[in-house]
């Protein structure tokens, strides 16, 4: 049963709690830089998207991580066999000991998910397997004050979002990600 995430953009309020909870739980190192877009490594990222102009401007926030794609491009290109898709739940995991830091996955991923810290090897969302395998929510979901993120099997998420006009994110890699309209 493929697992994935749902994001309700009506609820996401750009507070960054999920980002910090993810880094706290998974021990992801901080990196401070004022180069735009160079912050990281981040396994989950919150972005504000603006549209329109005063007085009709709109701002929404989105929180996204690895999509644990149905057909992950990263797995296909990895020359070291370091990335794999778990048959039981479709979670895409990376074996740090095999990763050679070549960045092929970074360029293959349509969503810019792979991240690199000081070790140089690829790291990314692992669906908090040390929590989810015990029946707990991933840290991001568990911490969200707005209940904007949900985790579950794609069937569960589809059922949950039936009345909410959510759609699966489009892409050749079949991202396991639903987002509200």
């Amino acid at each position, binding site marked *: 049963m493929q697992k994935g995430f749902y994001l309700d*953009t009506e609820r996401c*309020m750009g507070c960054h709690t999920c980002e910090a909870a993810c880094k706290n739980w998974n021990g992801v190192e901080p*990196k*401070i830089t*004022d180069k735009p*877009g160079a912050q*990281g490594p981040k396994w989950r990222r919150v972005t504000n998207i*603006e549209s329109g102009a005063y007085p009709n401007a709109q701002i929404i926030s989105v929180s*996204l991580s690895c999509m644990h794609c149905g057909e992950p491009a990263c797995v296909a290109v990895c020359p070291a066999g370091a990335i794999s898709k778990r048959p039981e739940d479709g979670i895409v995991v990376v074996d740090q000991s095999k990763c050679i830091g070549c960045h092929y996955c970074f360029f293959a991923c349509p969503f810019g998910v792979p991240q690199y810290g000081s070790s140089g090897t690829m790291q990314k969302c692992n669906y908090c397997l*040390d929590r989810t395998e015990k029946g707990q929510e991933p840290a991001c979901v568990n911490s969200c004050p707005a209940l904007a993120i949900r985790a579950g099997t794609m069937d569960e998420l589809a059922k949950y979002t039936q009345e909410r006009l959510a759609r699966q994110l489009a892409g050749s890699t079949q991202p396991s990600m639903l987002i509200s309209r």
Partner: protein
Amino acid sequence: MQDKEKIPGCRLGRRTFLKATGVLGVTATGAGLKPGLPNVGVADTKATSGGEIRRSICDMCCLGRCGIEVFVKDGRATRVQPFKDYPNGPICVKGNSILFQLYHPDRLKYPMKRTKPKGSSNAGWQRITWDEALGTIAANLTKIKQKYGAEKVLFYAGDPKDPVRPNLQRLALKFGSPNYGTESSVCHRAIIVAQNLNGAASAGLTPATRALIIWANNSAWSQPRSMGEIFKAKERGVKIIDVDPRIAPTTKLADIHLQPRPGTDGALALGMSRVILHENLYDKEFVLKWTQGFQEFGSYVQQFTPEKVEKITGVPAGKLVAAARLYASNKPTGWLTSASPTVHHWNGCQNHRAISAMTALTGAVPVPGLEPSTPALSFRDITESRTLLPPLRSKRVDLKDFPVWEQFEPEIQINRLPEYVKDGVLRAGLFVGCNYRMWPQDQLYAKAISDMDFTAGADFWLTPTMELMDIVLPAATSLERLGPINIAGRTVFLPQPVVPPIGEARGDMEWMWDLAKHLGMGAEFWNGDVMATIDSQLEPLGLKAADLIKAPKGIVIPPSTTPAGKPGFKTPSGKFEFKSSILEKAGFDGLPTYKEPPEGPIAAPQTAEKFPLIFNTGSREPMYTHSRHRNNPRLRELQPNPKLDINPKDAQARGIKQSEDVIVETPLGRITVKANITNIAQPGVVHVFHGWPQADVNTILPRTFDPITGFPAFKSQLCQVRKA
């Protein structure tokens, strides 16, 4: 800059998505830290699995006090997560970064004394024992007391707003000084003064609310945990009006969004009141029976026609009328405000009173004592200010400057500290946390603190303010100390240390009680016994400290109902006062009159020619609490630099590009920040967050105080912005 693409949900092309999420341009290798960015070593980046869960309270902001669960392995905290069963929570982005505070290499670890004279480039800090530190403090405070009088000693508490404040006030009063002040001189208390002048607070969001006005409140970034209730209200169909010069996350929940020019809230509320009266939408029964000055208020608001209010506030007349109708036609109404935005103006108290009056017209102000109520839990007031303060009242330093404040507040209004020190009215200070950067023209406050005969301070860090002290004490964080008692909803919780303190850091309550012993007042302070003190505080709740020690999730006290009593407001008339008799007596307008910000475009058109933008400071960012957390790498990476939020239109007119350096200039000086071009800011208004040492907004703001409350006008100044 502007992304035209709305997030389409079903079809995000690759480039669109990358652009939207800012992924393009990511370099894969770790760039080194640039000069000027903090070198933040250390930390908890090795999260280990397992360990025991211990529970405490998060102290990363001043108002949250959310429950937090800490994983502890081999005596060291490794991870945190929300304490789900606790009424306050979940922890936010700051709470999730708390371990970087706990284990920061720059934590103050030992008491230290200055060995070089004040004003030296280096204080020559020397480690001393707690006994020597407290002994020296006690000797110096006693010396001042004997030579000049106890009231010459200031007892000051900074952020966080901790329940440990009553302990400090007790210390002050027992020592003999009424001059206990806090950072509440610039935060929140002015709202309480305004409420008390009118009579009572308006209802907030309750299960019955049908229309809610959110006036200057962005809890998504200041207190995310409270957003849950607002979402629930939205889902149950509550009409929401959002009054905020910015577009905040709350804005997307609003049926109507009003964006007034900062500082004009009063005019907007008076304009809405006029519509409510004209269209006969007010609560007649409440107004006739429970208010005073209604006729005069009704006459006064006549001049605030929607067209005139549009000219003052910039809010389109049609939107104002629609908002007033939507609000007043959906009773019961509620009002959510936040600590300070409405009162950080020269006319702030009156503006806040005007909003309160508008909500009162819709019957939003419950009459105290009319219905049976469920009082909130509280522990015993150990300040004893009711009996100890009156005999000392004449020695309050704020008595002449802010007489209205003084009538309501048991703590002094401290914003004229530079004058009090210069005049020798205050000669020594004990600072339990303090940040001189919180005041406008803050260099004067740094000088005042430095000029005192003797000062001692407790903090987590050797901050620029602590650098001015004679003695510094290492304070324990909430994860390292016992207490104070935390009440959340119906839950009483006593946090116990989850890890041993860093160095010799001690809880504030613990060292203060020890200081009382050094001052020879031990008997009045439970002989320094913290547990005995907590027992005494808990007595009205029928609990003992030992009970709470055994209850790791706290003890829930079932609600009890107080029967209806003699109904009436706590005002001289016993009614809600549209026209305040207390203000009139003090020489102010009794009605909540609107006056232009003195440094604004209408009152100071000549200044506005050179400085055409409204300069708004102090609105919350999710990752920082005032000046705190700039040294927390997990938070700093989210916002590495001081920035200016500026509308695309204003940026374009000045040729300003995203993220480039810009100069913000006021008649008092300039600071350099990075431009953030965003629709968060409306055209004509720019926003800079406070507390950055390298771009301190308070160095370029004037000491303009609201004459009623003494609150500084942080939010309605004028500035110009240009490329650096």
